[in-house]
């Protein structure tokens, strides 16, 4: 159903640590196959999920579009290849017969030697985390497990990389043992795990007394009992990130808001919280449709909640009620697919003079209310890799050329709403371009270094694009203490790309 084994390897696929949960795959050869995939597969054809047949060939993702070789995968290596190659004709004959007449378990023995397997992997710093399976496993489950596992390791060792793996192998074995059993993910909540899997592990005297925390199996698996804080406070950050894709001709191809309500909770006991937003559907559901129509409400398209939120309740009457974990967490994320005016607009006029110089004229405009301010605005403009002797002129902010990233970054510390600024950049170009020097005119005359889009980073405090507002946050705890909620709003760039003309 899920992973047979988990491998953590370096970037070449050499295993650093591994755990074979089910013993139904030969782990060392699986690791070899993973490494050889990383080595052999072409960079472009690499995929996070791949299949190795019994013969060690990678494949399976070919869908066999007729005529055109699909993007990835070595041809062959699908379906029944494991029978064909590794067991010879005899194996094939036997197997067919087995399945058609007897369904004998003998086939197990025949195929175990080189059972085909699949690897599901993700990269983190200089590591690969890889789940290996020989069954039809739930890939989404493996991936989310791996991601949460990295989060857990980061929580334990602050940074997760090759060194920290080597330094902490004992605790990693312990965590691997606790977070997954027989390939099935169990609890991965770091606050709960920390109660009985500790860094030092030297508390021998108390060991015999330690009990599994109740939260490990409780319905409320994310919060321990008996938490105490001197001051009962909760901080709420509404963070909206604007994803934008603008075509070279200036039309907005795609814009969406990814919002998150982040919380930092310092509340004692088992508090019951209820959060009220100006959610249009909630107003409608509770019969306050006049409020819904007044324009002060927002329609959130897709909301995702932290596991602490009672989803069924929300489905019923759109009430967001929950018992929060202690400390930081994302209570909810939402997405709005509305057409947003690009908050920061950038236009670039480029004048290349082949063989001598290239000139840029960059115009940027802030398209939000003048009383808001965008902080730390960074506009990065891609330039060809072989430019030299940069010179800049701008009415505001700093401009720097980053040769390692082949771009120019224009930084404006404070960008008030409704303003417009100009920047000019001038570079020298070598008389022979790099491609010509290499003698391979790969791009056939098109200078592709321009194709990288302009990126913009910014942060606008006290402002949300969507207009979402926290109407109330009710906190009820048996002991009846008073708690203070603090709310902040901020809008920032998400994946913000403007294609160059």
């Amino acid at each position, binding site marked *: *159903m899920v992973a047979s084994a988990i491998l953590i390897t370096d970037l070449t696929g050499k295993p650093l640590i591994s755990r074979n949960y089910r013993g139904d795959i*030969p782990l*060392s050869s699986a690791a070899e196959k993973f490494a050889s995939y990383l080595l052999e597969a072409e960079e*472009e054809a690499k995929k*996070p999920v791949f299949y190795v*047949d019994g013969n060690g060939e990678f494949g399976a*993702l070919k869908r*066999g579009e007729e005529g055109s070789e699909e993007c990835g995968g070595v041809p*062959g290596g*699908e*379906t029944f290849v494991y029978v064909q190659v590794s067991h010879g*004709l*005899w194996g094939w*004959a*036997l197997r067919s017969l087995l399945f058609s007449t007897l*369904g*004998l*378990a*003998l086939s*197990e*023995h025949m195929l175990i*030697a080189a*059972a*085909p397997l*699949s690897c*599901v*992997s*993700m990269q983190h710093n200089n590591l690969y985390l890889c789940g290996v399976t020989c*069954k*039809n*496993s*739930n*890939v*989404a489950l493996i*991936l*989310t497990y791996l*991601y949460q596992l990295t989060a857990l390791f980061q929580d334990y060792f602050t940074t997760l990389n090759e060194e920290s793996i080597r330094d902490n*192998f*004992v605790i990693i*074995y*312990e965590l691997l043992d606790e977070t997954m059993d027989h390939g099935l993910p169990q*609890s991965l909540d770091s606050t709960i795990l920390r109660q009985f899997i500790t860094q030092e592990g030297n508390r*021998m005297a108390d*060991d015999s007394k*330690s009990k*599994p925390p109740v939260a490990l*199996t409780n319905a409320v698996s994310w919060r321990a009992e008996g938490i105490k804080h001197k001051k009962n406070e909760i901080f709420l950050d509404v963070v909206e990130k604007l994803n934008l894709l603008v075509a070279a001709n200036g039309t907005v191809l*795609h814009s969406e808001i990814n919002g998150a309500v982040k919380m930092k909770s310092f509340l004692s006991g088992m508090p019951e919280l209820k959060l009220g937003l100006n959610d249009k559907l909630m107003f409608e559901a509770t019969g306050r449709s006049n409020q819904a129509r007044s324009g002060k409400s927002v329609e959130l*398209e897709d909301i*995702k909640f932290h*596991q602490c939120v009672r*989803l069924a309740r929300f*489905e019923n009457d759109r009430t967001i009620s929950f018992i929060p974990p202690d400390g930081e967490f994302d209570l909810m994320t939402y*997405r709005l*697919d509305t057409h947003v005016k690009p908050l920061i607009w950038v236009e670039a006029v480029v004048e290349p003079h082949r063989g001598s110089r290239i000139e840029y004229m960059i115009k940027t405009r802030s398209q939000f209310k003048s009383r808001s301010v965008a902080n730390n605005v960074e506009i990065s403009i891609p330039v060809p890799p072989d430019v030299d002797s940069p010179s800049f002129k701008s009415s505001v902010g700093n401009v720097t050329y980053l040769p390692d990233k082949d771009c120019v970054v224009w930084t404006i510390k404070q960008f008030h709403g409704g303003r417009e600024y100009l920047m000019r950049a001038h570079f020298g170009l070598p008389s022979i371009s790099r491609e010509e020097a290499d003698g391979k005119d790969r*791009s056939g*005359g098109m200078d*592709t270094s321009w194709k*990288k889009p302009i990126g913009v980073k910014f942060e606008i405090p006290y402002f949300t694009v969507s207009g979402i507002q926290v109407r109330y946050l009710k906190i009820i705890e048996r002991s009846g203490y008073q708690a203070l909620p603090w709310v902040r709003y901020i809008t920032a760039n998400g994946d913000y790309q403007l*294609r160059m003309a």
Partner: protein
Amino acid sequence: MAPKDGTPSGGGSDSRFFNTNKKGEMHELRMELHSTDRNIKVDAVKKVIASMTVGKDVSMLFTDVLNCAQTANIELKKLVYLYLINYAKSQPELTLLAVNTFVKDASDPNPLIRALAVRTMGCIRVDRITEYLCEPLGRALRDEDPYVRKTAAVCVAKLYDIAPELVRERGFIETLHDLISDSNPSVVANGVAALSEISETSGRDVMKISASVLQKLLAALNECTEWGQVFILDSLAKYTPADAREAEGIIERVTPRLQHANSAVVMSAVKVILSYMDVMGGGAHADSIRALTRKLAPPLVTLLNSEPEIQYVALRNINLIVQKRPNILENEIKVFFCKYNDPIYVKMEKLEIIIKLVSEKNIDQVLLELKEYATEVDVDFVRKSVSAIGRCAVKLDRAAERCIGVLLELIQTKVNYVVQESVIVIKDIFRRYPNRYESIIATLCDNLDTLDEPQAKAAMIWIIGEYAERIDNADELLDAFLETFEEEDPAVQLQLLTATVKCFLKNPEETQDMVQRVLDLATEESDNPDLRDRGFIYWRLLSTDPEAAKLVVLGDKPVIEDDTFRLEPNLLNVLVGQIATLSSIYHKPPEAFVVRAKRGATGSDGMGVGDLGDDIEEGDEEEYEDDNDVNRGGGGDDLLDIGGLSMNDNAASSNYGNLGLEPDMFGAPTPSVAEPEARMSKVCAPEKSGGIELWAGFRQVQGAVKLELDVRNISSNVPVSTLAIQLNKNSFGLSPAAQQIMCNPPIPVGGSGRHSVELVVNPAMLVQAPAGQPASPQIQVAIKNMTTGLVFYFAVNFAFEVLFSPDGALERATFIESWKSIDDKKELYGTVSDLPPASTDIDQVAAKFKAHHIFLIARRPVPNAEGQEVAYFSMRTTTGMVFMAELTFKKGVNAAKVCLKTEQIAYGVQAKVALETLLRS
């Protein structure tokens, strides 16, 4: 338990060769493991685990590490257990020593330790430990602590993997059903997971969702962890609701899960909803279906904001979803537009979905996008984008012209691969819309020089041939290609042949020479049978009836179809039921890549064979195989019928590739004295083989390897007279010299008879062990009862010593030389305990070994170790593999240490097992 001795060959002047640093290090570790200081002990175990982690073999410390298990320190215990899990398989005997600790820990007052013991025991896949596991497991399943119960639930699934019959006998499956009603949601979730696991392993539905179970699952869904929710949703997806109302009811309860932050929960919820929507059907539920369709879109779109790997999984699934229910995402095409920094695998999948969602409403925007992509850096992505433009043209009749416009623009860029890809898709457009866009041929012809890839060339040549009458200089163009005919790719050659023939039929006067030349090239100069055959067909056609040739060659071709919704509906439905799983990523049904039944190679003692057999559901294996896959089997068709394994038919049996070869290269050695008997074991029970019980064993007779078969007719009414035998490929390359076993006189019910089958080594039957893996001792045998026509199978472990040849004694000097030259990494260690008295005396052992062609080279007492003595042996197989062994004995101890060195590392384990077995017998 103290270690029996120190390092066996330490010290001593002439034994320096055998001494290694590694042993010293191990010795030190061993001392530390026995330290009374807890910290030193913990550190030592950590060192052992560290060595294990980096792949060093520390199995020889097994007993020493095991000793540390009796501790109250959880950390230390966990480490020891971790070690046990790793090495249990290689030391099954010693693992039994751990049973006591497990059993004790399983009733420890601390629930953490109880759970740890049960969890670890389940991970030790040693058959004999299972019987001890049942008791503690039964208790753990009813433990008062939910943490222990949830661990025990998973353990049942583990046990089922090793010993399904035990699980059934003990009624653990029923206990799992009880756990579904447990008050604790985590226990419920793991119970569900275990039941689904068992269902999958056994191929039977042990889950059996009834109305009450359903309610419990839905209730637990609201309470359990995110993982538990996935387990529950996945098992719900396998359930088929009784009617539309039930389906709607469940969907209602599942829909809130679409709001979960965990993508896996969302995808599993989508799977349940989509699967059940089919049950709801249309009609009265059309409104609910529409509402659901609206609800599904936002969560699917949001998945595209997750990590790239998850995006990839989501996109592969969305690919299925838009085929199944195109209207869910019909208005969302923009979210699939590629971002510059998307990983390439995400971009490729997005393109696929763009093509699936493209419509006349959005084609303009899509074309702009695709054109943009066609100027990016990544060649593969660019090519796919260009090809996507062509596919849009094929799909949308009314937009075809605009698509062609874009392609022409792209051709003007003169970028080599863009032009080639454009030509390839334009060919498809021509085939889709014949006689519409031929005006652009001129532009294509201008770019002939750019084409250097076979596919593009072939496409262009096809176009020239097809439209020869519209191209003034078609013959010249083809002529230019013909100059390099012999160097071209077969695909290009085939197209050239066809195009020239077309050209000739359209314009016979000027191309007669050319066609003659091509036909000559194709039929006489080429080694390619396809090309030759096609050449001959054309030749004959042209020479017999040119008019008929015209009809055939220039006839109307079928118009190609829009192929964007191409998964076959049945397969699509299967795949939608598999959303989020590997199957949905590969777009293949699970049977295509999963070996369903599974069992470790441990089940070699015969109990493993066929005991699941009756339960496995059949029939679904063959359903989706397409011809391609089958044909890769290489003429596999006639082999499907094993019934055709007729002994009198040499032609058929030579297909197995092993009969024709003479084994003379392994020359027969001279007979030796008293030849050892075969150890027989029961390999086949009468119920599986039509009432015949089989015992099998191996022995060497006058240098020949014999498979001894005891045939006992238990209940076969027909006397057993003739059997046919066949061996699967095996690690030793053994195959029967003759395939027929004659029982003369026939064996009636109750009778028995012994037959020996000579086995010869045949390189064609050899299966190489995967690198780094020991060779499998197993030999799989198929027997056909020629009288009844029944075929049955068994597996038996080979006795490796049977292969040892009488010339296996090495010169002393050679021995020392070889021993030194073999890397210590290739050493294998083991301890054989509980030896019979005869096996503790080196003289007797040497005599016994000699009978098996294992030769004593030298023996000497171990200096500084009272009563210890080592003996060195060598052996060589008939296939030329040499093994060297060092055996250490100690007076008064009925155990021996075995250390084996060989270059044939894959077979080292077999040789070691052979020695150990001989010592024990």
